[in-house]
């Protein structure tokens, strides 16, 4: 039993850390019992307000707290025997049963819910649905049953009239005036104005539903135009047709009219003319071709000539300039030299300027390069440091995890142990069951044998009885024997009765013993002592109160007298 107690203690400690684990449930004080039960109840039904602790003083308060907790347990579905006495005079067996029930009832979601508080925004659809289902189920389980015909009235608030089912059966031919009044013919308009039933009349039959019908019709109208629709087809043809028709019909028209009005000879004349024109056209075309060829040749020649000109012109210019220079060679040479010099000087200053400009730039480049390198080194260094730190953290974590793993495996061991023990118990129970069956079989066999023997004995007796009775008429000894037989029979049946009585008594004794054992477990004596103590306290309290009352009365009398 102590293992069960340990588990219970563990669970209770998880529910409320304020509950100090003790070795055994039997050592629980009433205060602890109240604390434990009210914590569990608070977890199971957070919406109910319950007293958290047992007041130390007045009995009446203690009694009311215990009663309300007992009520709470009953509401939570506990079926066992429970009352204020369970809390005020706890006994281990009942308490164990109650706490086991409460722990079983604890919501398993508690842990998960706490984890989920932080990220409640990121609930997936699935979780939302699950939550909805859970809520729906909880409400449905809680709501009292209502007969079907009252559901549409009574359970409305809880959305619970799920039992009223209407099949989705649309009226597939709902007639409603179409969107565009111009499209309606006069007769149709008249029909809708006077005779046509409104949609409610159309869907009044129980075989169709109004909402199903309108949803169906709406969808049909929205998607309908994509299907081959007579109106659409017609307008399409009209649009395409006009450009097609004239093209085909015009030439035919002309030829036919000219053919019928004039005679054969003009036709021939005309064809001759056409022929002539055609040959003329051909010759002209040929001519044109030859002209075009000539044109192309001339164009080619022209382009060649322009090319030549382009090539010759720069040469010509060069020649012109040299001839100019050579005309006055001395002076021109001096000029050229001066020009050369000035150009050289110009170049030098430019180089100097360049150098001046370049120098600071080079310097900055240098500094930047070194700075960059240093930065890089710095980065690497810090990176190394960071990695080192990380490594340390990781090793630390690893150590920690190792430690937890070790402790976990240690705490796992008892579970294995428990399962092993449970298996053992189950095996024992099986064995015991087999034994019981064997005993039952034996008993049945015995019963059967007993019956057989009894029946045989009965027959034997009847037979002997007959025999002796017959001979008793003649024989004196036989008469005596008959009497003896009767006596024997009577004595034997008395004996049998005695045996069965003894059996019954033994059975009763055993039952009583079991009952006594049961009662002993509840250690009534100490409870009784406690109860008597409490009663005495009550009496004392009452006496005090009476004393007070009489004192007050006395005072009043005195006041009245004076």
């Amino acid at each position, binding site marked *: 039993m102590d293992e069960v107690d340990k588990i219970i203690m563990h669970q209770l400690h998880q529910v409320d850390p304020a509950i100090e684990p003790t070795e055994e449930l039997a050592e629980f004080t009433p205060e602890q019992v109240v604390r434990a039960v009210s914590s569990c109840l608070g977890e199971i039904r957070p919406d109910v307000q319950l007293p958290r602790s047992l007041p130390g003083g007045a009995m009446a308060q203690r009694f009311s707290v215990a009663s309300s907790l007992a009520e709470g347990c009953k509401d939570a579905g506990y079926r066992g025997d429970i009352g204020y006495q369970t809390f005020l005079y706890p006994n281990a067996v009942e308490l164990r049963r109650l706490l086991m029930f409460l722990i079983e009832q604890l919501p398993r979601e508690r842990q998960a819910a706490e984890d989920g508080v932080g990220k409640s925004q990121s609930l997936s659809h699935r979780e939302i649905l699950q939550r909805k289902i859970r809520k729906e189920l909880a409400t449905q389980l809680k709501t009292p049953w209502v007969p079907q015909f009252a559901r549409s009235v009574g359970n409305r608030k809880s959305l619970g009239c799920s039992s009223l089912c209407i099949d989705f059966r649309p009226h597939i031919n709902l007639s409603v005036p179409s969107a565009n009044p111009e499209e309606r013919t006069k007769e149709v308009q008249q029909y809708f104005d006077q005779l*046509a039933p409104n949609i409610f009349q159309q869907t009044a039959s129980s075989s169709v539903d109004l909402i199903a019908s309108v949803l169906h019709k709406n969808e049909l109208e929205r998607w309908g135009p994509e299907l081959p629709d007579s109106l659409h087809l017609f307008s399409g043809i009209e649009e395409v047709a006009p450009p097609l028709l004239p093209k085909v019909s015009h030439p035919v028209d002309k030829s036919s009219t000219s053919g019928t009005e004039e005679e054969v000879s003009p036709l021939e004349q005309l064809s001759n003319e056409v022929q002539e024109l055609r040959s003329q056209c051909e010759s002209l075309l040929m001519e044109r071709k030859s002209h075009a060829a000539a044109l192309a040749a001339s164009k080619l020649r022209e382009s060649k000539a322009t090319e030549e000109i382009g090539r010759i012109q720069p040469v010509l210019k060069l020649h012109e300039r040299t001839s100019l220079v050579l005309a006055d060679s001395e002076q021109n040479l001096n000029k050229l030299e001066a020009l050369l010099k000035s150009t050289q000087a110009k170049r030098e200053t430019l180089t100097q300027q360049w150098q001046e400009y370049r120098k600071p730039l080079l310097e900055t480049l240098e500094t930047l390069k070194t700075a960059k390198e240093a930065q890089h080194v710095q980065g690497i260094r810090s990176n190394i440091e960071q990695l080192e730190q990380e490594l340390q953290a990781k090793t630390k974590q690893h150590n920690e995890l190792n430690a937890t793993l070790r402790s976990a495996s240690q705490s796992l061991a008892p579970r294995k142990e428990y399962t092993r023990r449970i298996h053992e118990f189950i095996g024992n129970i099986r064995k015991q069951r087999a034994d019981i069956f064997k005993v039952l079989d034996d008993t049945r066999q015995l019963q059967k044998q007993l019956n057989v023997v009894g029946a045989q004995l009965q027959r034997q007796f009847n037979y002997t009885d007959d025999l002796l009775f017959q001979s008793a008429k003649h024989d004196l000894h036989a008469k005596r024997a008959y009497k003896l037989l009767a006596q024997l029979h009577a004595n034997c049946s008395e004996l049998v009765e005695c045996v069965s009585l003894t059996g019954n008594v033994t059975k009763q004794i055993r039952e009583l013993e079991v009952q006594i054992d049961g009662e002993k477990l509840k250690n009534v004596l100490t409870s009784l002592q406690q109860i008597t103590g409490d009663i005495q306290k009550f009496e004392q309290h009452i006496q005090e109160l009476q004393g007070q009352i009489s004192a007050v009365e006395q005072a009043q009398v005195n006041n009245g007298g004076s």
Partner: protein
Amino acid sequence: MEKPPPPEDSGLLSATVVAGLKSLGNIITPALTKLLIANALKLTLHPDATIAPVPELYASNAACAKQSEYAVVTLLSLATKHGWDGFMLRQQLDHLSINSAAIEELTRVYEDNRKDLVLRQLQLGHNFPHITDIQWRIACDVKSSTSDCSTGVASFYINLGHFRPSSGERVTIVEFVCNAEELQSLINRLKEIERHCSQMAVA
């Protein structure tokens, strides 16, 4: 958690519905519009109830009134189907440039009766025969054409059924017989379902 539908959802309404909505407050007078919407709502929510007809709706321009009735019912069912709130409905109607008084009235009626509309449309759809009522009797045979003596065991005749919502008439869905053990195992089976449900509700 209801995501607002994208704007092209105004395409949920067919041309007929739009036309019907547009005539509200225009061709149909504001007073009649109010009456028409109220009447349409009543008939939508209580299809089986007998509601007094409103002849003045059809006194003039009956075709228009019939079209608008259809439009109002469709609008309310679609809004309910897609879980629009009042604001959403107003937005959609604004988009269609409908008479503002009519929009006001439609939105008000929708918001006031949204719960009932949801309940109404919740019932619609495919269902297996739904059991809401159970009846039983205990019977024991005394003598039969095949046997002279009784089996000496009581058997249970169990009848599962429901009531027809329109007429209140009871409809038997299934009827069967069991003995005490079979009944016990049936009860156990049903309790298993209940247990599963309560586990689902807690876990």
